[in-house]
């Protein structure tokens, strides 16, 4: 029977089909976005020179006008220029300029002995701060801060090249760029509030990034900065440049840019797998290995079935997934409804199951990795920062959940019907 109003019906069906598909969770989308934005961008292409658009006599007039204008500019500039040597754009370290922001930097790259300074202000700098510049000072635009309005933000950044003595490392935790405002701590530089009568919001953030020690001071016009103000600060923090691009950096960036685009720092797959029979019982085994530095053991989680057929496995070395399984909708990564905790030794639990189980393996790599087909498995090799494994029945009942954090710990939780296998410890 032919349907009525066919076009409308087709559109409706496509829309219904779309709605029947669950999109990835917000945290997965965020992880994907971060993986993408952690990649370096290629340099912009050189633009082709255009033909000069003016006739010769107008060109002559323009040149004359420019000479006069430059002469006037230099003369006036000499009268009003600040004595400091602040540079308006980023060199090796500093803030990228953006509309609505004033950015200054000390103009020299940081060394282990000499700090480089940079200031970004969402309000125009007070003339006195502009005139003084920031070289040789603490970098604090004091007059600007004294008058900072409620919605104003000033960020002062101090950079020191990490030298041969790394004892300071513990004060500057390694962080990835862009740095996050939310990692900042409340501070008062040398216990002195800048503006005691109308207190500022003063925060500090320390980091090691691109082989530099970075010390950031945030000054908000209010002691309790609004979310909008925090995000304004974050937007500027996203434009923080740390360290010059050396030739070796450029080569590394080029290598990374030329790498396979399907490589990703996050591998997250859920599989629907048939289960095997062992000793007449249809079961799966879930194994957990804690990282034990003294024995050179690394964290790992594994789901097997039948005669030790691996369904899904993740360790500090990579990921392995059985190609005998099918893709499935993601299952939750949670220990809810299960019992267990930190694994002190290698352990295994056997769980009686039905014909199919759902297995989810999630691994966060330190560098982009790619799944490759190797002898009946999809494998990705590389250093894994953290891995998770979840197993559920096809109907969604949780059977096991585990998580390891590289060099730290492995936790495993299992359902009540799973039995510890004493042969593995």
């Amino acid at each position, binding site marked *: 029977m032919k349907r009525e109003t066919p076009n409308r019906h087709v559109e409706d069906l496509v829309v219904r089909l779309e709605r029947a598909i669950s999109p990835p969770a917000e945290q997965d989308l965020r992880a994907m976005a971060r993986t993408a934005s952690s990649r370096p*961008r290629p340099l912009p292409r050189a633009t082709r020179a255009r033909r000069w658009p003016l006739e010769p006599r107008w060109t002559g007039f323009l040149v004359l006008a420019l000479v006069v204008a430059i002469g006037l500019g230099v003369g006036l500039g000499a009268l009003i220029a600040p004595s400091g040597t602040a540079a308006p754009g980023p060199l090796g370290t500093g803030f990228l300029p953006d509309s609505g922001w004033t950015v200054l930097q000390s103009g020299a790259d940081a060394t282990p002995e000499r700090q480089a300074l940079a200031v970004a202000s969402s309000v125009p700098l007070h003339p006195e701060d502009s005139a003084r510049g920031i070289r040789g000072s603490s970098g604090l635009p004091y007059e600007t801060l004294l008058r900072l309005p409620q919605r104003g933000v000033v960020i002062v950044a101090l950079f020191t090249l990490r030298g041969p003595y790394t004892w300071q490392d513990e004060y500057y935790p390694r962080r990835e760029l862009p740095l996050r405002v939310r990692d900042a701590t*409340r501070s008062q530089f040398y216990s002195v509030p800048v503006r005691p009568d109308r207190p500022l919001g003063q925060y500090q953030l320390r980091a090691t990034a691109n082989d530099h020690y970075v010390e950031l001071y945030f000054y908000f016009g209010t002691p309790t900065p609004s*979310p909008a103000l925090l995000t304004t600060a974050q937007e500027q923090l996203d434009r923080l440049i740390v360290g010059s691009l050396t030739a070796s950096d450029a080569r590394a960036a080029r290598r990374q840019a030329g790498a396979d685009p399907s490589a990703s720092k996050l591998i997250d797959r859920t599989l629907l797998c048939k289960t095997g029979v062992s000793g007449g019982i249809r079961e799966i085994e879930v194994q957990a290995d804690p990282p034990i530095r003294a024995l050179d053991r690394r964290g790992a989680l594994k789901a097997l079935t039948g005669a030790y057929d691996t369904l899904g496995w993740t360790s500090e070395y990579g990921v392995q997934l059985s190609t005998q399984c099918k893709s499935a909708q993601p299952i939750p990564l949670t220990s809810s409804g299960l019992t267990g905790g930190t694994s002190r030794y290698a352990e295994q639990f056997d769980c009686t199951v039905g014909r199919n189980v759902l297995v989810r393996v999630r691994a966060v790599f330190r560098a982009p990795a790619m799944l490759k087909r190797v002898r009946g498995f999809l494998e990705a090799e590389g250093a894994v920062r953290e891995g998770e494994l979840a197993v559920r029945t096809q109907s969604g009942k949780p059977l096991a959940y585990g998580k390891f954090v590289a060099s730290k710990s492995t936790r495993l939780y299992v359902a009540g019907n799973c039995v510890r296998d004493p042969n593995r410890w």
Partner: protein
Amino acid sequence: MSQNDVSRDDGTFARLDATTEGVPSLDPFADRRASESPPAELDEPELVRRAQLGSSASFEQLVLNRGPALYRYLAVRLRDEGDARDALQETLLAAWQGLPSLRTGSKFWPWLCGIAAHKAADAARGRSHAPLDEVDASAPDDDELLEVRDALAALPQHFREVLLLRHLLGLSEAEVAEVLDTRVGTVKSRSARARKALEDLLR
């Protein structure tokens, strides 16, 4: 001071979180997620402009806004959960790297759809496993929808592409023409023929 504090000789720094001296957390996503992320309040061209400048936060917001629809398109197109996720990740990588070359922020969505369409085509060409029979785990329960899904899969690719771009991603005919690098007239005729073919398959 807690273990997480950044210590200083003069001990002037205190960890800032929701429980410290009544000072609010600096984490803009901590407890007021819905209202506090200004990128979400910005319109798309502004988010695109910021992402072009290198703001990963703005790019993240763009992905949160547009990612679900893109994923659904890729899932219907590729009929495989894992392939759709991989293709989405590849689309986002290409988008991040290509963003500086996008001239008009308002054309971000059709531009992104174009990347996704090409990545989906690459994934469909490159995959080594059977796309249809082994991957039913993400299939909808509704029989009618299953029919539609199978009928869409049975359509020639250029018909299917037009239908999905028009009705699933909501692009205009002119935008579809731009994505597929063809003329608007061709899109119109393909669209009509695709609907007719789908209707015939669904009879």
